[in-house]
């Protein structure tokens, strides 16, 4: 342990402290078990009175200018440099015990996530969500044709952020979002990473413990679905918004508590796909390039991410497509910034299913079940959810035929050649898809874009109106 209040490995146990508005709470009162790897960790007892700020108190960030908040976040981004940040360094070891992602990938996430706190990224986020960002700093007035004035403010919300378990460092984006809308924030950490959020917040507190951003943030852990906690605090008297990054049983639990005054802003569980036109077979070089790009999209976080491609719909002759599959399998086996050459192997059920289909001659298989990557060529998409670096390649007569496999759960659709995106994107949107991109760039974003078909910050805030309507004879009273 590196000092009082630190996260750490004490007596063989992992310890996850809480962070409440600048204060680190470090006692180890309760033992939990992480859901993915079954590691035990201890946390302080959860004092609900301390983590819920009453509505009688104005939000600490209310009168802090957006520009100042951005300055603070940019400074935090610099301080989150892994090489100089002891909290993150320590976290890296702890997360390895609770999270299925390899340590090296978590390290790369820690190294790349602070880029979200770059000034241009933060400013783009604000500008795309709010046509006039002045609504965040004060009351903005507009006048109708009769001369009545309407004043509006994007008032800070009270928010619970249910952080996703599959993306350590995702908390950095949530902290930025919460700060930009000046919210009063409670971060509910996942059992597969009950450490990183507190490490990031401690970094912020080291810059200025009394900064209103710091005083707006609390990060704690309880077991998702714990009724004693959730029934108590998921009430409109305490919170306006519950932001959920992902799906699964945790969301089904939350839905029970929604009602007038408390809304769910959900980044729903998603799958992603690739659409490859016959142009890929123009030359062996193009096949190699596109196979590499599909592999890059498929392997993001060892395919734990929603934007990771799982199905490839491809035009072409059988032998051509087989050649593509072989090239893809080879590229899946490569070490990458956010993927391991050898990932955890696919579940045994998948192995059985593929084995049976292969024995029947219904699918052809490249790669293997050893975690290096698996490519399955079939006439119809497989029934299971491809994971652990598995790509299901499906031949289609035309990319138009692939549109029927797109639905509201389809997030990112990588397309080759890029020129065909435009002809497809309206129908993909109508089917429920949320984003098209050039294949090979699924994990890259133009700053300020929508996420899961919405501008989230715009939905977070409490839009407060103040109307000045002149009735005849008011005389301006």
């Amino acid at each position, binding site marked *: 342990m590196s000092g009082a209040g630190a996260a750490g490995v004490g007596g063989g146990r992992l310890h996850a402290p809480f962070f409440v508005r600048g204060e680190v709470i470090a006692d180890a009162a309760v033992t939990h078990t992480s859901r993915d790897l079954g590691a035990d960790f201890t946390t302080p007892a959860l004092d609900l009175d301390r983590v819920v700020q009453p509505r009688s108190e104005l939000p600490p960030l209310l009168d802090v200018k957006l520009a100042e908040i951005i300055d603070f976040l940019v400074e935090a981004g610099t301080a989150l440099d892994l090489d100089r940040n002891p909290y993150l360094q320590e976290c890296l070891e702890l997360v390895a015990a609770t999270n299925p992602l390899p340590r090296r990938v978590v390290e790369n996430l820690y190294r790349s996530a602070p880029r979200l706190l770059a000034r241009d990224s933060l400013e783009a986020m604000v500008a795309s969500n709010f046509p006039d960002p002045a609504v965040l700093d004060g009351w903005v007035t507009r006048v109708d044709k009769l001369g009545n004035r309407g004043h509006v403010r994007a008032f800070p919300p009270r928010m619970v952020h249910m952080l996703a378990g599959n993306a350590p460092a995702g908390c950095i984006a949530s902290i930025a979002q919460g700060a930009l809308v000046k919210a009063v924030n409670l971060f509910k950490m*996942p059992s597969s990473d009950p450490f990183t959020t507190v490490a990031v917040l401690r970094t912020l507190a080291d810059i200025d413990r009394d900064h209103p951003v710091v005083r707006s943030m609390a990060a704690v852990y309880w077991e998702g679905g714990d009724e004693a906690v959730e029934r108590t605090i998921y009430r409109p008297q305490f919170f306006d918004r519950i932001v959920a990054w992902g799906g699964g*049983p945790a969301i089904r639990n939350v839905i029970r508590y929604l009602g007038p005054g408390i809304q769910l802003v959900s980044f729903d*569980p998603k*799958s992603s796909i690739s659409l490859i036109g016959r142009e890929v077979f123009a030359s062996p070089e193009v096949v190699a390039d596109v196979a590499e790009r599909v592999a890059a999209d498929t392997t993001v976080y060892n395919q734990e991410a929603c934007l990771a491609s799982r199905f490839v719909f491809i035009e072409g002759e059988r032998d051509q497509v087989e050649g593509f599959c072989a090239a893809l399998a080879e590229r899946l086996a490569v070490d990458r910034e956010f993927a391991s050459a050898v990932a955890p192997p696919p579940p045994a059920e998948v192995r059985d299913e593929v084995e049976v289909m292969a024995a029947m001659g219904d699918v052809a298989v490249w790669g293997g079940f050893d975690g290096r990557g698996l490519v399955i060529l079939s006439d*119809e998409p497989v029934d299971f959810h491809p994971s652990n670096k598995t790509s299901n390649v499906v031949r289609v007569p035309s990319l138009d035929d692939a549109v029927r496999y797109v639905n*509201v759960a389809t997030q990112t659709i990588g397309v080759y050649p890029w020129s065909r995106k435009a002809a497809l994107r309206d129908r993909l949107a109508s089917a429920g898809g949320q984003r098209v991109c050039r294949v090979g760039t699924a994990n890259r974003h133009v700053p300020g874009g929508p996420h899961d078909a919405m501008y989230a910050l715009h939905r977070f805030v409490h839009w407060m109106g103040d109307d000045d309507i002149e009735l005849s004879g008011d005389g301006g009273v």
Partner: protein
Amino acid sequence: MASALDRLLGLRDAPDRFDIPPAELLPLQLDAANQRLEEQVGQIPLLANRVEAAGVTAITSAADLVPLLFAHNTYKTYAEPWLTGGKWDRMARWLATVSTYEPSDPTGATFADVEGLDEWVARLEDEGRYVSCSSGTTGKPAMLGATAADLEFGAQSNVAGFTWTTGIEPAQDRTFFGLGPRTTVTRNERIRQAMADAFGSTVHEPYQLPVAPITTGSVMAMIMLRRRIAEGSAAPSEVAEFERLTNERQASMEAARADAIEALIAARDQKLLLTGFFPSVYPLAVGVRERGYGAGDFRPDNAMLTGGGLKGAQLPPDYREVVFETFGLAEERVFHLYSMQEINTPFPKCRARRYHVAPWVLALPLDPPGERLLDAGGGEIEARAAFLDLSLEGRWGGVISGDRVRIDVRPCACGHQGPHIGEDIVRFADLEGGDKITCAGTIDAYVRGAA
């Protein structure tokens, strides 16, 4: 001299079959396992794959069996579009890949004109292959093929298990009450028939809860609709029709319960054999009490066959006492079994409330991922349950279950021999709890109502 397999299967009705120490049984079991493997490796392509991949030529220890075990979802590995798209020839070829079934035409072409799952199942039965289709409505049903001999063995081992547990001999003197919803699965029907033949009264007609049997075809209809809802191709009127049927089924269940309560009260002077899971039987006990009958009104020597846990049903903590007291039951006259559809043998619960594994079944306690055999010799251990049921000839009896069990191979407190399994059986899938949150997921999360 009889083969090891014949000797083990010959123990089916032996009164002392649960009194043989596991160490004494093991050589016989390994011999029999080799016999089954030799027979089936040429008949089940998937098993041949496994043997090849594992490089196993002969089974010399229980650990040799582990790489040859099938995951329980092996029996769901067909592609759902074959089922929903009526590709019955392909389904037949699939069945031939995972079991000993051999279609008369290897391409499955004789099934090309089949209309619907019920007919496919009926056609297979004409060829002596009995497919039981699990009735789960939330996902793909498992399809398990068996031979007539498998069905007979399974049914008779239930009869024998009942007698072993309760001491009640087959005297055809009990009015048989089927209190759970009935299925049209032949395997379940054979067990029911065998029980009714052995213990059922020759005077009083057996009673069956009067709800329309759940046919495999109706299960299919639900699965197909679910798929269409997910694809977005189901019209609102179809979803409305589905909701209406669900409500209707619920209403008919209530009417059936009222009927069963009347029938039970009317038969209260007869010696009864009740069958059903506790979540089905408990509301009947409550209904009988509400009608003013109960303790003392029924004969004190009634018996019951039940199994499984509560399957997610919420019952009050004293549900067993309420059922027992109402119907004149007692722990020693209840045959409570543990089994699973992938194997053929019920494991009866003893007086010490432990389920006993039959001698023709090898219990193979595995680590949670199901990869490594654990040693249960030193006392009770927690494990993923896996078994090799040597009684199965229609498919490979080696299967890894989804159940977490506590298993012990030492002699049981009841005085009989192990291996024996504790009551607290949970599905690994249920242990996941409500904590999971991830941004990656499928359209399945978006389908409401049909789940």
